[in-house]
C-alpha cells in the first residue's frame, strides 16, 4: 500500500480476511470471504470491496471442494450467472475484532428462502427473545 490511501492501514490478510461482518444494527451479515483488489489512479493496488458468500469462499478453498462449493451455490442461485455479494470499502466503518459496515445489509437469497419456506411456517418464528 502507498500513502495515497487515506486513513489507518491494515494488513488485508490478517485484519480483514475471514473476519465477521456486522452491520449498524449489530446484525451478523457474513464473513469477509474474499477481497476485491483494484488498481487506483496512482497505479497502486488497493482493496476496493469485500466479497461475501459461498461464491467468494469457494475459489479460496481451491481444488475439488472449492469447485463443488461454487457449483452448488451457482446452481441454487436465482441468477443465470451469479456474482458474489459485494460490499464496497466505502461502506466499511471500522475494522476491529469484527468488520463493521454501514448499511442495513439485505439477507442473502438462500436465507430468504429458508426463512419463507421453513422457519416462518413454524409457530413462534417472530417471538421476541428472552
Amino acid at each position, binding site marked *: 500500500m502507498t500513502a495515497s490511501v487515506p486513513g489507518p492501514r491494515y494488513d488485508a490478510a490478517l*485484519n480483514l*480476511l*475471514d*473476519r*465477521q*461482518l456486522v452491520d449498524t444494527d449489530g*446484525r*451478523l*451479515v*457474513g*464473513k469477509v*470471504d474474499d477481497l476485491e483488489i483494484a488498481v487506483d489512479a496512482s497505479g497502486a493496488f488497493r482493496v476496493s470491496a469485500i466479497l*461475501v458468500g459461498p461464491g467468494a*469462499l469457494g475459489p*479460496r*478453498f*481451491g481444488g475439488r*471442494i472449492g469447485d463443488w462449493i461454487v457449483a452448488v451455490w451457482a446452481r441454487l442461485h436465482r441468477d443465470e450467472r451469479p456474482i458474489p455479494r459485494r460490499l464496497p470499502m466505502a461502506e466499511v466503518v471500522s475494522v*476491529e*475484532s*469484527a468488520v463493521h459496515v454501514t448499511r442495513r445489509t439485505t439477507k442473502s437469497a*438462500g*436465507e430468504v428462502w*429458508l*426463512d419463507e419456506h*421453513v*422457519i*416462518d411456517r*413454524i409457530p*413462534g*418464528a*417472530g*417471538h*421476541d*427473545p*428472552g
Partner: protein
Amino acid sequence: MKRLFAVALGVLTAIGGFVDIGDLVTNAAVGSRFGMSLAWVVVVGVIGICAFAEMSGRVAAVSQRPTFDLIRERLGPRIGFANLVGSVAVTFLTFVAEIGGVALALALATSVNDLLWIPLVGLVVWLVLWRISFGVIENVFGLMGLALVVFAVAVWQLTPDWDVLWQQATATNPPATEDWLTYWYYAIALFGAAMTPYEVFFFSSGGVEEGWTRKSIATMRSNVFVGFPLGGLLSLAIAASAAIVLFPLGVQVDTLGQVALPVVVSLGKLGLAVTLIGFFAATFGAACETGLSVGYSIGQYFGWQWGKYVRPRQAARFHVVLLVSTILAVGVLLTTVDPIKVTEYSVVFSAIALPLTYFPILVVANDPDYMGENVNGRGANLLGLIYLVLVIVASVAAIPLMILTKAGQ
C-alpha cells in the same frame, strides 16, 4: 446484592451443568473397574477446562467473538473447515449421546422402553431450543443438575474406608485385574469427558448471547474457577461411589441404572428418585448445550446470524441447523444403537478433537490487537502450553489405544 446473586447463580449453574452423560458414564465405569486409581485424571481435566474456558470466556467478553469465529480467522477457510467438520461431528455425537441419556433416565423412572421416549425427547429438546430463552435453559437445568450432589451424600453415607480410597487414588499402577493399556485408554476417555470441546463453544457463545463485556470478566472467572472444580468434585463422587460399591464386587458399568446403583444401596428409593432427577437435568441440559453448539459452530464459521438473542426469523439458517441436527440425532438413536456405547465413543473422539479447539484459543488470547490489556498473563500461557502438549499427546494416543484395547474391553 444483585451482583452477589448473579455470581451465586452462575456458580451454582456451573456446578450443576458441569456433569453430562459422558461424565456420568465414564466416571462410573472407571470407578467400577479401576477404583480411584484414575481420579488424578479428573483433577488434571478440570484444571485444563478451567484454563481454556477462562481464556475463551475472556476473549468473548473483550472482543465479542466466540470460539469458532477465532478458529476460522486464525486457521483460514480450508483448515478451519476441516476443523469445523471434525468438531461438529464430535459435538453431534455427544448430542446423540445426551438425547439417548435423557431417554435412558426416563426409561429408568417409568419402565417404558427408552426407544419409545427418544422421539418425544427429541421433540421437547427442539421445542426448548426454539422457544425458551437462553438464560432459562442455562439456569433451570444447571440448578436441577445440583440434584447429583446425592452422589456425594451417598459416598458419605456408605462410610467407606477412606484409607483404601486414598491408597487407590495414590497408587502408581492399575489394579491387578486391569492392564496398563486399558488404564491409559480410560485415562484418555476421562480426560475427554472432562474437557469436551463443546463446553468452550457453548461457554464462549453463551457469553456473546448474554452480552458480556470487560466488566463481566470477574463474574465469568468466579463461575469457572469455583463452579467447574465443584462440578469436578461431583464427577469424583460418582467415581468414588462406584469404587466403593461396584469395584469390590467386580461389577462393570454397562447401563445408566448401574451408575445409580451405589446411591440406591446407600440411600434407597428416595436417593434413586433424586438421582433420576439429576440424570434427567444433566443430560437434558447438556442436550440443549450440544445442540446449540452444533448451530453455533456452523453459524460462526460461515458468518451467519446465530443465537437465541434474536428472533428465530432473524437467524433462519441457525434454526434450520438446530432442527435438522435434532431430527438426525433422533434418527441415529432409533437405529437401536446403545446410547451408553455412543457415549463411550463420544468422549474418546472428544479427546481426539481437543487440539483443534484449544490451539486457536491460546493464539488469540495472546493477541494484543484483539485483547488489549486483557491478553494472557504468564501463568495462563504456561498452563495453556502444558495443556496444549497434553491434549496433543492424548489426541495422538487415543486411536492406537482404542484399537489395541478393543475400546477398553
